[in-house]
């Protein structure tokens, strides 16, 4: 016999689908099947069950190999490393619960660490832009119920947020959008003819890195001012046409992703996209939303916000919280050699940071807390395996529109494996003892 757990939250991307159904074996130990999830989400649940999973901490040996150690030893190493360090970097926090983040921040406050999350390589530039010019936004349900103009700018939900279009943005029939996708016009801006672009009413195949120009051109077109013949490779007629399409809608939204946050103009792209949105509110109702990646990177920004007042790059090393991206951001700190220890939880900088930063991590005392084996765990001095949040332990998470959803536990973690929160709580206790001594 099997049993079914309903209303399960998917701990993959910022879409944070909460309608999964997971079938588990009678003893509650094995996941048999996953319904309603996208392929990636389903794989995440099934991967939790893969054989050969590491269930005990492993310490790197002088020859580069790893040797199993106890959780007690892992707690001791981590606490000693953090307590001794002058300026440790505590990075990640995006694939874990808010409860775990909160304990992590308590540790960071005691040892004077820098707390940074994956926004630093993802939507950090968005956060900077919001600090410059604000952000008019809405919840995903508003999009479902009202939106008739949808722009995907520099993002590819078909691959990165697979259920976004079916649950919220393109296909669902909402209160004022009872014809589903027939009520909506879709514009995609991407230098590649992506699978998302192929579905669009209009695809602007923009020259790579010229987003700022096209955004500015749309603002010009809204004002019916003069444009050059082409902007960013797009003929001006098409830009005027798009401006007309946007202003003729009742409720529009721009979703944007890495295509604008990671290119050279960085936060300036987002500034311009937000100002375009603000301009559009002179004509109709318009919102803008970042397509957040990790399922709880948004939550990390929230918890940091109410505890310290900044969404990422929070430097606690001087005894009070400071914030200065470019100085207190992970990659800048690593590149300049300003940190003397690295603690990673809920992220994989080994795969997602430029290799020069990864090299610095590998040279420092370092701990990687992660259920998986990743490039990070394989260069860190200590790997601490933990339970999967959202599969083997619950906890609060924030969706890309900042809506908090409490993730559910579906199965037990392997015998003896700690959760993030349990491991951090033990480290916190030990750090307290060391700092008071």
């Amino acid at each position, binding site marked *: 016999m099997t049993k079914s757990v309903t209303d399960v939250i998917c701990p*993959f991307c910022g879409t944070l689908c909460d309608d999964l159904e997971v079938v588990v074996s009678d003893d509650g130990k094995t996941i048999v099947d996953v319904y309603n999830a996208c392929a*990636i*989400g389903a*794989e*995440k649940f*099934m*991967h939790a069950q*893969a054989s050969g999973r590491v269930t005990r901490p492993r310490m790197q040996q002088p020859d*580069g190999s790893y040797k199993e150690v106890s959780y007690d030893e892992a707690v001791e190493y981590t606490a000693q490393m953090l307590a001794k360090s002058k300026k440790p970097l505590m990075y990640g926090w995006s694939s874990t619960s808010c409860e775990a983040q909160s304990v992590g921040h308590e540790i960071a406050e005691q040892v004077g660490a820098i707390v940074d999350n994956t926004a*630093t*390589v993802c939507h*950090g*530039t968005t956060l*900077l832009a919001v600090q410059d010019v604000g952000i008019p936004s809405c919840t995903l349900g508003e999009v479902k119920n009202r939106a008739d103009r949808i722009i995907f700018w520099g993002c*590819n939900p078909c691959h990165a947020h697979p259920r976004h279009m079916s649950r919220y943005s393109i296909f669902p029939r909402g209160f004022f959008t009872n014809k589903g996708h027939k009520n909506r016009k879709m514009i995609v801006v991407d*230098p*590649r*003819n*992506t*699978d998302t672009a192929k579905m669009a009413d209009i695809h602007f*195949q923009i020259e*790579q*890195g010229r987003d700022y120009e096209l955004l500015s051109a749309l603002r010009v077109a809204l004002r019916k001012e003069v444009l050059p013949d082409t902007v960013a490779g797009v003929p001006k007629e098409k830009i005027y046409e798009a401006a007309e399409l946007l202003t003729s809608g009742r409720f529009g939204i721009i979703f944007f992703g*890495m*295509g604008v*946050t*990671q*290119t*050279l103009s*960085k*936060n300036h792209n987002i500034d311009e996209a937000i100002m375009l949105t603000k301009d559009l509110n002179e004509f109709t109702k318009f919102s803008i939303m970042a397509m957040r990646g990790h399922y709880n990177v948004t939550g990390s920004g929230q918890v940091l916000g109410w505890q310290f007042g900044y969404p990422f*790059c929070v430097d606690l090393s001087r005894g009070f919280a400071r914030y200065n*991206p*470019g*100085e*207190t*951001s*992970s*990659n*800048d700190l690593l*590149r300049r050699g300003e940190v003397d220890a690295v603690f990673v939880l809920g992220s*994989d900088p*080994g*795969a*997602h*940071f*430029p*290799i*020069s*930063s*990864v*090299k610095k991590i*590998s*040279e420092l005392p370092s701990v990687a807390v992660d259920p*998986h*084996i*990743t*490039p990070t765990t*394989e*260069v860190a001095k200590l790997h601490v395996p933990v339970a999967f949040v959202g599969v083997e332990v619950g906890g609060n998470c924030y969706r890309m529109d900042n809506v908090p959803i409490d993730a559910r536990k579906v199965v037990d973690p392997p015998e003896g494996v700690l959760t993030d929160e349990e491991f951090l709580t033990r480290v916190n206790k030990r750090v307290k003892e060391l700092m008071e001594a």
Partner: protein
Amino acid sequence: MEGGKEKDAYRKACGIIEMDPSDLKKLGAWRNTNVKVTSPHGSVIVKAVEATQGPHPGLGYIPMGPWANSVTDPNTYSTGMPTFKGVPIEVEIAMNEPVLSSIELVQKKCRGEI
């Protein structure tokens, strides 16, 4: 990617460069040839595949992962965000060189072996 980064599936999905057929032709490479991608910030061996979401002549696309991060521009220009996209690269055929697994690649780069 969620199936395990130590697995071969990850290497096959992300240890690639998607290139426009016209660029492959210019390079004189067949599809699925290993190539060496070099930028001012490093180099890496990946498999050249035909663009699935093209055409985009002149544009190469390496999915997010340690292979891409071997050649991306780490400069953040005081924003905290490395310049991951829009990095000028050169591609040359490296038929006999292997595409390393993510873990091998990162470990070897960290030890300075490659």
